[in-house]
C-alpha cells in the first residue's frame, strides 16, 4: 500500500514545539559530541592504553554487572510480588523502593557505610566471612546496587503486570507448579521489561559517583588499584584541569554509549515482529 503525503502548512504550535525540541536535543548532544571529537583517535587510543584508565573502565563495567546480577536475583522476585499481590502498605513499600532515586547519592554512601562499615550491623556479619565493603570492589557493588536497583524493580514490575494472570492459571491446571509456571510463562513473557530494566540498572550503576566515592574510593582490583570511571574523570579534572580530563571523558562517553546502545538493541530486537 502506498501512502500519499499531502503537504500541509505547519501550524504555529508545531513550529514552536519543534524548535524547543531541537534546543534540548542540542543541549544533550553538543557537549557529548564536542568532547568526543576534540581528541584525535591516536590520543584516545593512547589514553585507553593507560593502565589507570583501562583498569578503571574494567572495574566500572565489572562492578555494575555484578550489581545488576545481584539486582536480578533479589529484585525480580520482589517485582513479581508487587505486580501480583495486593497487600496492606503496598503503596508505601513501592514509594520506599524509589527512595534511592531521590536522596543525594553522597548521603546514600554515608548511610550505606553506617550499615556495611566493618564496625556496624551487616558489615560485621560479612566481615566474619571475609567480605569487607570499605574500599573494596564489594563496596563499589553495594553502592551501585543501592542507587540503581529501583530502575530494575520498577521495570520488571511493569513487565509482570502485562502478563495476563490467566496464563499462569492455565499453566497451573496443565500441571505446572508455581515455580514452573513462573519460569516457563511469567518470566519469558516479562523478559523484555526485565532486560531493559537491567540495562538501565547497569547504566545507572556504572555512572554512579557520590555513593561510590564515600564507600569505595580507591579499591584493589586484579592486582591494581583502581577508581570507577566517574571518579577517575573527576579526579583528573580536579588535579590536572580540563585539558587532561578531556580524553578520558571521551573514552568513558564512547564506551558507555556503545554498551548501552548494543544492549538496548538486543532488548528491542524483534519488537516489531
Amino acid at each position, binding site marked *: 500500500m502506498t501512502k500519499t503525503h499531502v503537504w500541509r502548512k505547519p501550524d504555529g504550535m508545531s513550529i514552536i514545539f519543534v524548535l524547543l525540541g531541537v534546543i534540548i536535543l542540542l543541549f544533550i548532544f553538543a557537549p557529548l559530541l564536542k568532547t568526543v571529537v576534540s581528541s584525535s583517535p591516536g590520543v584516545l587510543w593512547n589514553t585507553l592504553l593507560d593502565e589507570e584508565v583501562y583498569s578503571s573502565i574494567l572495574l566500572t563495567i565489572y562492578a555494575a554487572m555484578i550489581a545488576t546480577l545481584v539486582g536480578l536475583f533479589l529484585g525480580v522476585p520482589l517485582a513479581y510480588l508487587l505486580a501480583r499481590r495486593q497487600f496492606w502498605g503496598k503503596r508505601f513499600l513501592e514509594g520506599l523502593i524509589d527512595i534511592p532515586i531521590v536522596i543525594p547519592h553522597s548521603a546514600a554512601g554515608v548511610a550505606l557505610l553506617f550499615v556495611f562499615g566493618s564496625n556496624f550491623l551487616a558489615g560485621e556479619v560479612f566481615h566474619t566471612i571475609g567480605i569487607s565493603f570499605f574500599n573494596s570492589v564489594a563496596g563499589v557493588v553495594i553502592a551501585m546496587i543501592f542507587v540503581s536497583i529501583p530502575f530494575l524493580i520498577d521495570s520488571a514490575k511493569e513487565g509482570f503486570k502485562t502478563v*495476563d494472570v490467566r496464563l499462569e492459571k492455565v499453566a*497451573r*491446571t496443565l500441571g505446572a507448579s508455581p515455580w514452573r509456571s513462573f519460569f516457563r510463562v511469567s518470566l519469558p513473557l516479562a523478559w523484555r521489561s526485565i532486560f531493559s530494566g537491567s540495562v538501565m540498572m547497569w547504566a545507572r550503576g556504572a555512572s554512579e559517583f557520590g555513593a561510590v566515592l564515600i564507600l569505595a574510593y580507591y579499591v584493589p582490583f586484579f592486582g591494581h588499584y583502581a577508581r570507577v570511571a566517574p571518579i577517575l574523570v573527576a579526579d583528573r579534572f580536579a588535579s590536572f584541569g580540563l585539558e587532561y580530563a578531556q580524553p578520558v571523558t571521551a573514552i568513558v562517553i564512547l564506551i558507555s554509549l556503545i554498551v548501552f546502545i548494543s544492549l538496548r538493541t538486543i532488548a528491542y530486537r524483534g519488537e516489531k515482529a
Partner: protein
Amino acid sequence: MIAIKNLKVDLGDFLLQNIDLEINSGEYFIILGPTGAGKTVLLEAIAGLYPVLEGEVWIDGREVTRLSPEKRRIGIVYQDYSLFPHLSVEGNIAFGLRLRKYPKASIKEKVNAIAEIVGVTHLLERKPQTLSGGEQQKVALARVLVTEPEVLLLDEPLSALDPETKERMQSTLKELHRRVGVTIIHVTHDFEEAVALGERVAVLNNGCIAQVGAPEEILRQPSSEFVAHFALSRNIFTGKAEEGEDGHACVDVGGIKLRAITELKGKVRLSLRPEDIIISKEPLHSTARNCFEGVVSDIAHRGAVVYVTVNLPPDFICLITRQSFEELGLREGVKVWITFKASAMHVF
C-alpha cells in the same frame, strides 16, 4: 463423579454460597447465569485457582479442596482462550506434556493425534496471535485435552465467536465430548447454548444455585426471572426423529408428530420461536406442514404484544400482536388452531 458441597467463595462485592452440585462422570453440565454472577470464579474455585471460604470439592471419591491446581487433573479453557503468546501452537499443545517429561517422540505423537481430532494440524507452526477466534479456541481445547483431564471447565467458550463460528464450535464441542468422554462443566450466560449442549443445567442466580435439571425441566418451571424471560422467548421440545415422507423428518414429541427439516435421527431437541406460530380459529390451508388444534391455557400481556400458551399437549408459546389477540377474541379455554412451517423449527 464431581461433588461440590456447600461451597462458599468471596467475590469481593458479594458471596457465592450454598453451592451444592453433583455432576456425573462424562456428563455435559452447564452452569447458566447472568453476566457478573460469579461463574468464572466458581470454575476457578473448582480448579483450585481461587480460594474457597468453606465447603468441599470431590472428584471420584477423593477430596481435592486443599489440593494445588496442578494435582487436580482439572483443565480449564477461558473465554479469551489464554494461549501462551511466546509459544507456537505446537508448543502450546505440548506444554502440559513437556511438564510431565514425556519422551519427545511420544509428545509429538500425542500432539499430532489431538491436533487431528480438533482439526488444527495445519496450524501447528503458527503463533497464537495469528489465529482467528475459532482456531484459538480449538488450540486451547487441544492444549487441555492432551493432558487427559478428568474434568474440563469451559468459561463462556462460545461468547467471543461470531454466530456462524459459534454454531460450528457448538457441534465441535458436542462431538469432542462424545469422542473423548471427558466430564465437562461449561458456564454461559446464553440460554440457547445451554439448551443446545447441556445434558443438565444449573441456574446460578444471586450467588446461589437456583435450579438444577434438564433444560426442558428448567424451561417448564423456571424459578428465576432470568430463566422465565428466556422461557417466554423459545419453545423447546425433546423428541425422537425419524424419516418421514417427502424428505421431511418426523419428530415425535410425545402426543404429536412434528414435521421438521433435519438430517438427525434419534433423540433430538427442537426449538421454535413464538413469533413463527400463527393462531387461527379454523384450520389454515397453507403450505405450512404443521397444523394442530389445541386449547388456550395461559395469556401474558406484554405491551403491544401478547404471549398465548396453547396446550395440545405439549404447550406451545405463541406471540401475537395485541390487535390480532382482540380480533380473535382469545381467552383461556378457547379452542384454536396453530400453524407453523417445517423450516421454522430448529433441530439440534
